[in-house]
Each structure stands twice: as structure tokens, then as C-alpha cells.
């Protein structure tokens, strides 16, 4: 079965997801030993050409798949340590992954998910058609993990994290991704039923609800991918060297920062601006 990784990248004026995906794509390829493809849109490709990264992207990615940019008014507040800004959040086309993936067995990862170990490679052989990140694992620990990081709402189902999704191209996964699209199209209705906040579309919620429905409204202990080890956007990527990432993190989400490092461990870095500031160093890892 042909295995591979797929990353979506749709730039906006503030965040260069395409540039980020060069790093995440090449790290994933290096550490998991399978090809990587990029799904992006014409304007992002144009930007990649203008900023002279398209050739590098062609080297790294097995396929560069052109899709339509999701047309939606989905804005969110992004933090960069103590600063913040509002930017579009164009991630509403993940449900199309089943149609566009060039692989029979696909690992879908976010463009800010840095694969620094071979941990995910052991999940290729798991006897399941669909695996989703089973939860959130904060770098500081439980003290910074809120209820809504673990559940989609006060009374809703367990939150799965669509930062990593592994699936085989089967009839049941086709139905699953069609259901994710249906939930997105009827987000307010499902928000009423599952009591989650409908203001901003989140793949994590759509995937959690779809899985809950597909598995007979049961929350069973089926196989899943490991919890997503994450560094919030109030923390900052400070430095990068030979596979060791140094972070400034704020354990109590205030102005006090402490320093920590991550090595040989996959990490989801939510502070996109701090990734951009370290882009040259990150590229040295490639």
C-alpha cells in the first residue's frame, strides 16, 4: 500500500504557511521515511515562486497539489507571546483530503507540526482505517490544559486533535470525510446538538463529532494517534539547533517565562510568528 504524508498550506497576509510546510515536510520525510505532498492554492504557489522557495518545495514534495483556497470568513486571534493579531484561518478544506491524496495510506499533518522522531511510523501497521490524534498534551502539563482542550464543549464529546490524522483510502473513510464536510456545511446545527461554540470553524471539533457519529455515538477505546504534544502561541520558539528546539514558555500564562527544550519528540508549535523568526535555522535542519 502506497504510504505518504500530506500537508495543507494556504497563506494569508500575516502567516506564511507555505514556508513553514517546507520545514515540516522535510522533517517528516526525513524522520518517517515516506514521501510528502503539499496541498496548496494558486495564490500561495505564486507567492512561493516570488519568494524563491518553489524550487525547494519541488525538491521536498513528491506532489504539489493545487486546490481551491477555502472561501470562508473564519478569522481568529493568534498570539505571538504577549502580542496578538487577527488573521484568517483558512483550514476548511481538510475534508477534501480523501479525494486529493495521492496515497492509499495517508498521514495528514498540520503545517506547524514538527516531526522530530519516528514515533508515528509505528502506526502505519495498526489495524484501523482511521486514526486521529487522541488529545492535547501541553508542554507544561495538566495545569495549563483546560476542559475545552479535552472536550468539544461543557457537555460534549471528547475532543480529538486533527493535527495528525492517518487514514486508509477505504469506503468507510470516504464516508467519514464526507460527514466532516457535512458537519462543516451545517456547523450551527451541529453546534446546537453538541453544544459547542460555533463562532469559529474548527477541524478538531468537526472530526470529533464525525467520529462520534460514525462509531455509533460511542466513545470507545479504539486505536488513535498519540496526543498532540503542543506549545501554545503564548509561548515562543526561541532557538533551534541540531534537532533541539528551545522554547520560552509561560507556565501560568502570564508575563513570567521559563526556558525549556524539546528534542527527538514531535511537537506542535502554535506560535507561527516565532517559527518564521527561526526559519533560517529550521531550514538548516532540512
Amino acid at each position, binding site marked *: 500500500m502506497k504510504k505518504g504524508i500530506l500537508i495543507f498550506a494556504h497563506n494569508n497576509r500575516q502567516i506564511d504557511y507555505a514556508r513553514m510546510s517546507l520545514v515540516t515536510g522535510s522533517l517528516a520525510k526525513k524522520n518517517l521515511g515516506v514521501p510528502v505532498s503539499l496541498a496548496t492554492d494558486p495564490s500561495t504557489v505564486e507567492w512561493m515562486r516570488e519568494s524563491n522557495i518553489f524550487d525547494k518545495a519541488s525538491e521536498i514534495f513528491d506532489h504539489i497539489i493545487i486546490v481551491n483556497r477555502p472561501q470562508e470568513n473564519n478569522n481568529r486571534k493568534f498570539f505571538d507571546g504577549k502580542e496578538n493579531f487577527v488573521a484568517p484561518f483558512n483550514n476548511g478544506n481538510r475534508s477534501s483530503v480523501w479525494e486529493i491524496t495521492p496515497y492509499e495510506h495517508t498521514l495528514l499533518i498540520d503545517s506547524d507540526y514538527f516531526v522530530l522522531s519516528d514515533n508515528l511510523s509505528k502506526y502505519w501497521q495498526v489495524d484501523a482505517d482511521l486514526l486521529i490524534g487522541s488529545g492535547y498534551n501541553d*508542554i507544561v502539563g495538566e495545569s495549563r490544559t483546560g476542559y475545552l482542550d479535552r472536550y468539544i464543549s461543557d457537555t460534549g464529546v471528547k475532543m480529538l486533535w486533527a493535527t495528525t490524522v492517518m487514514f486508509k483510502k477505504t469506503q468507510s473513510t470516504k464516508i467519514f470525510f464526507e460527514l466532516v464536510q457535512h458537519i462543516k456545511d451545517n456547523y450551527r446545527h451541529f453546534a446546537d446538538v453538541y453544544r459547542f461554540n460555533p463562532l469559529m470553524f474548527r477541524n478538531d471539533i468537526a472530526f470529533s463529532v464525525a467520529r462520534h457519529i460514525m462509531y455509533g455515538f460511542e466513545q470507545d477505546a479504539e486505536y488513535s494517534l498519540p496526543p498532540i504534544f503542543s506549545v501554545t502561541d503564548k509561548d515562543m520558539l526561541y532557538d533551534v539547533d541540531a534537532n533541539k528546539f528551545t522554547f520560552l514558555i509561560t507556565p501560568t500564562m502570564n508575563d513570567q517565562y521559563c526556558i525549556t527544550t524539546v528534542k527527538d519528540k514531535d511537537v506542535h508549535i502554535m506560535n507561527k510568528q516565532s517559527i518564521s523568526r527561526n526559519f533560517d535555522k529550521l531550514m538548516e535542519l532540512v
Partner: protein
Amino acid sequence: MQEEFKKALDFSNFRQTYSIQRKNLKEKIDAKLTYGFNGGIFKIDRGLLNFVQMLIDQGRTEGVVILDINENPVLIDKLNEFKDEIFDRYFSTTLEYFEENQELKKSRSIEKLIDA
């Protein structure tokens, strides 16, 4: 008093970094002790090692079914090969854990902690 308070804060900051580094190390080791085999996922721990060794000692070495972390039955054709793999992984990973943990324990400053 001001100086003592600053020292306490510095120590608190050191302990916070230490505690996060320890948590991250432990999780890294846990991930390395997760082993995918024949459609199942196993946690390599003392229970699994003992159970597998006991089955081998009883002469049950082929076509053995063991429950994985989700309590799903997984068929293991050649238990000796499975045992060799999990023992190797267990010893190399716990040795790595020991060495990196020692480095952390010896560190007396934040700079040393993050270099460990």
C-alpha cells in the same frame, strides 16, 4: 530580604524548568516504549516482558495471541522474535532514559538543564 527572595524565585524558576524537562523526557521514553506489531500497539513494560518470557518458558512460542494496549487480540507467530525485539527496545530505551535523567539530576543551573 530582597536578595533572598530573588534567590527563591531563581530556584523556583529552575525547578519549573527541571520539572518540564523531566516530563518531556518521560513522555519521549514512553513513546519509544510503544511498539506496533501485526496490527496492534503494545506498551513495552515489565508486565509484557514477564508475560512473554513466561510463555516462552512454558514452551508456547508459536501462534500465540496477546492482548495489546486496547485489549485487542494480536496474533504473534514467532514469540521468540517478538521477545528479542521488545527486550532490545526496552533495554536500549531505559538505558537512554537513565543517562538523560542522570544528566538532568546533575544539572545545577537552567543553562545546564537545557543542555542536558
